[in-house]
């Protein structure tokens, strides 16, 4: 027995919790509590208006302000967010993408105001726009100008904020959208290469600086329940990154070729049914990215047991933080060298993933790289296909999900029984944030604001770097919406392909065929094919559910109109009318179903379409489902309704009932 105090342990990864809500002040309190509980870094969740570049009082922000993250409209919000937290000592990770240059500018401005020099700042802006088009949905501008903003940030930070990771290339969100391990590796690496190639091509970054730039690229990964495969995946990524950075960019220093990554473990597989089981899933998933020392994550954040129910409360997040602490401090994991070196099994699987990923990555590169493969929808279509395969496997029972399609008989969970077991954001948060925003607008110097915006546009249209002009705008009191509008004016706005293609899938089972027959019969009665509109109102970017519903509806013979994410209720109602659909299906996971569904119903009434049935799906707590049904919604679905064939049958019922009423 060795003496405990003598054992050498590795330093653990950084413990983080992805959080933020309501207001800068409320989030600041939360951060300070979390730090006091042993969290060692911050991970900021912004609300959707901030992520998509609109101010809190913009029509699209309605119902979304402070909901799923903190609203940051200007430099004073940013200062309030970090009040009492010394920025020169903090490591801050910001989940921000299309508006990343702006939020980093606000961070720099807030630091400077508190007397901290930008040179000292440490942290990460997520800043991977490609996976926004493929999965996450908070893109604003078209791919090319967006890539330019990223390369500007890389070029700027390498000297001006040398400890900053300007981009965290993400495979995390690809897995949440259904990606296989091979797709995760291939598409994220192809993204990293696009960024590095763009930086390398710049005149203002000397060739000698490239190895340092490579060294600053970090990744953000996912880890799913198949943790053995995940261990092999991270080992494959570490090896492939080492190879590529040497071959393609000639990086000689092995330290700069190291594959550095942070993680949030898988949430897609966390269930609404028997939610206590999720804790076990989270623990196992954590092993995937911690077990192998050689490819261990640098930072880790874990979802909570109530992931599929709604937003976590501080206690829920604390429970997840404890998982990390127990693993790092109680177990002996950190006392050993790599556990898998020399394992034939792990080595073989690693090799297989690496080879397949390289092939798929090269396919994308041959297409012209990730920008081309976003625009021609290649990658998005592959993800939707993978997700469809996953949905089917769960529906027919080929993929077992405990508590969902097997072992469903259970004691009621004491964690949820008759309890409010999620965080509710106060509706007053939106109003108060708008009041603060207006007060701020009145306080600032309008001439300075106008001059800073003109300067920003001039700099951008003459090819200059976005960062210095944005930092100046931050100091001048420009708002998030104003900064983004200036860029919209120059770059335009983009809508990404939905990836939902008209390719017929074969091999429908008997249940699907039965529904297909019912659709055919009802279409005959209706005189034309049953036509459905799948709509995603508001800023919510969760598209998996809508895509799967659209694909399934097509498979059972319906005509499906699906136009992608981020539409206003007015746009949805107009489409429903112009298209002559028989039923509207809305998918809302952001928590703003209250406002958005009410708006759609009211607009339908104004359009003389109050007889048009509406069904709703998403993260809808039971009480809210009740309210929605009372307001006239025909059916409400939540994640526990994994049986898509049954849902389709019910949609046929809904249309049949409504057409009988006429």
């Amino acid at each position: 027995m060795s003496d405990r105090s003598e054992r050498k342990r590795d330093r653990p990864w950084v413990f983080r919790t992805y959080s933020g809500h309501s207001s800068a002040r409320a989030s600041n309190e939360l951060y300070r509590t979390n730090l006091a509980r042993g969290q060692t870094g911050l991970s900021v969740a912004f609300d959707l208006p901030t992520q998509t570049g609109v101010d809190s009082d913009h029509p699209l922000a309605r119902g979304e302000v402070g909901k799923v993250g903190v609203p940051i409209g200007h430099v004073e919000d940013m200062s309030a967010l970090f009040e009492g937290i010394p920025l020169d000592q903090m490591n801050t990770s910001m989940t921000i993408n299309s508006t990343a240059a702006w939020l980093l500018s606000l961070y720099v401005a807030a630091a400077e105001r508190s007397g901290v020099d930008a040179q000292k700042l440490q942290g990460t802006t997520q800043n991977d726009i490609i996976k926004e088009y493929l999965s996450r949905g908070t893109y604003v501008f078209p791919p090319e100008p967006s890539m330019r903003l990223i390369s500007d940030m890389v070029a700027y930070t390498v000297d001006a904020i040398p400890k900053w990771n300007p981009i965290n290339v993400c495979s995390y969100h690809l897995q949440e959208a259904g990606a296989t391990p091979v797709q995760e590796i291939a598409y994220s690496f192809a993204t990293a290469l696009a960024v590095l190639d763009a930086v390398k091509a710049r005149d203002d970054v000397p060739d000698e600086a490239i190895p340092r730039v490579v060294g600053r690229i970090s990744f953000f990964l996912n880890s799913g329940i198949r943790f053995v495969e995940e261990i092999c995946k991270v080992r494959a990524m570490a090896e492939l990154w080492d190879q590529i950075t040497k071959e393609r960019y000639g990086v000689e220093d092995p330290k700069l070729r190291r594959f550095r990554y942070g993680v949030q473990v898988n949430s897609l597989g966390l269930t609404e049914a028997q939610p206590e089981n999720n804790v076990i899933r989270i623990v196992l998933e954590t092993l995937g990215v911690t077990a192998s020392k050689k490819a261990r994550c640098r930072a880790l954040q874990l979802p909570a047991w109530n992931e599929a129910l709604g937003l976590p409360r501080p206690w829920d997040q604390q429970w997840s933080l404890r998982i990390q602490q127990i693993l790092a401090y109680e177990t002996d994991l950190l006392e050993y060298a790599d556990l898998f070196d020399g394992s034939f099994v792990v080595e073989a699987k690693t090799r297989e993933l690496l080879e397949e990923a390289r092939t798929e990555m090269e396919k994308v590169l041959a297409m012209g790289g990730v920008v081309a493969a976003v625009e021609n929808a290649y990658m998005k279509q592959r993800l939707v296909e993978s997700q469809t395969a996953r949905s089917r496997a769960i529906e027919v029972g080929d993929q077992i999900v405990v508590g969902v399609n097997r072992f469903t008989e259970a004691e009621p969970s004491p964690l949820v029984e008759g309890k409010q077991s999620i965080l509710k954001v106060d509706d007053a948060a939106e109003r108060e944030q708008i009041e603060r925003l207006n007060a701020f607008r009145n306080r600032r110097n309008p001439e300075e604001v106008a001059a800073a915006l003109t300067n920003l546009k001039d700099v951008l249209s003459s090819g200059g770097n976005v960062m210095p002009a944005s930092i100046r705008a931050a100091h001048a009191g420009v708002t998030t919406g104003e900064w983004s509008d200036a860029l919209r004016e120059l770059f335009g706005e983009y809508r990404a392909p939905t990836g939902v293609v008209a390719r017929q899938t074969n091999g429908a089972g008997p249940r699907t065929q039965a529904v297909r027959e019912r659709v055919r019969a009802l279409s005959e009665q209706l005189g034309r094919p049953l036509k459905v509109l799948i709509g995603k109102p508001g800023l919510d970017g969760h598209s998996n559910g809508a895509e799967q519903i659209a694909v399934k509806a097509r498979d059972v013979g319906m005509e499906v109109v699906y136009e992608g994410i981020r539409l206003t209720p007015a746009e949805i109602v107009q489409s429903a009318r112009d298209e002559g659909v028989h039923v509207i299906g809305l998918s809302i996971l952001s928590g703003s179903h209250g406002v958005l569904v009410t708006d759609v119903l009211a607009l339908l009434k104004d359009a003389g379409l109050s007889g048009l049935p509406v069904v709703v799906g998403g993260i809808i707590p039971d009480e809210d489902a009740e309210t929605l049904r009372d307001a006239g919604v025909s059916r409400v679905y939540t994640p526990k309704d994994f049986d898509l064939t049954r849902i389709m049958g019910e949609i046929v019922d809904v249309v049949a009932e409504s057409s009988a009423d006429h």
Partner: protein
Amino acid sequence: MAEALNLTDDQRPERQAAALKLLDILEREAPFPGAARIGITGAPGAGKSTLLDALVRELRPRGETVAIVAVDPSSQRTGGALLGDRIRLRSGSSDPGVFIRSMAARDRLGGLSDATHAGVTILALVFDRVFIETVGVGQSEADVSRLVDTLVFVANPGTGDVLQFMKAGLLELPDIFLVNKADAGPIAERTVSELESGLSLGERSDAAWTPPVLLTSARDGSGVHQFVEALDAHRRHLQNDDRISQRRGEAARALVIGALQRRYGSFGLQQLGGLASLRSRLAEDPTPSAFTRIARLGAEIEEALRKSD
């Protein structure tokens, strides 16, 4: 408007009769020449939808109203269809001056259906311009050209679809050629010269109109203004010497023949004395409504078939 389209789309016999009546009235009473009817065709991914969006943004500020019928030829009536890819950007989808309806192609033979024809007829009454977006797959160019005054072909530079298009002998149909994605640089210019040299070889039925080849970028908006000018020039050209009556008349006859052929096959046409005799009959027939003609001649064929049983 949408209601009327729902009606003409309805296959139930009593609704079909009502729809026919409505369409007949509309075709007779509609002001002539009325709305500009424009077909936009080209390979998938060429940028047709994005271009339409750019057009909407060009035309709406001038006060012009726009209707778009987006036809998805890959889907059939009973197979289910995904019609999501309507328009790429959000340039006014909650603006009452813009109307978008997507349709599955419906016909088993891949032709445009009567519903599309009906849709255009109805929308032309209300909107200043009616666009039909359809994927170019040979047959559909000919189909759309019967529904529109102006046919526009959108080429995707560097993809080889221009060559295919030329090989298929379809070069004489379009009135305007666009090479989109001008922002892609020299490759787009190369496609322009390919097209131009292809065009210089062919004969065209309307010798008085030389189809322009324009470079556009739906992405940055360049060339879109010129495109609208070309559309207007072609409309003026058609209105000279009343070419438009001729064109619509020919198109309507082709429509009637096409519809009868699809429904009853060549055996059916023989009941009317064969193609040539049908042609001359149509040329003399004063009924302006194609819908009424299709219904009447259809009834005649059915009658003849019944007798021959």
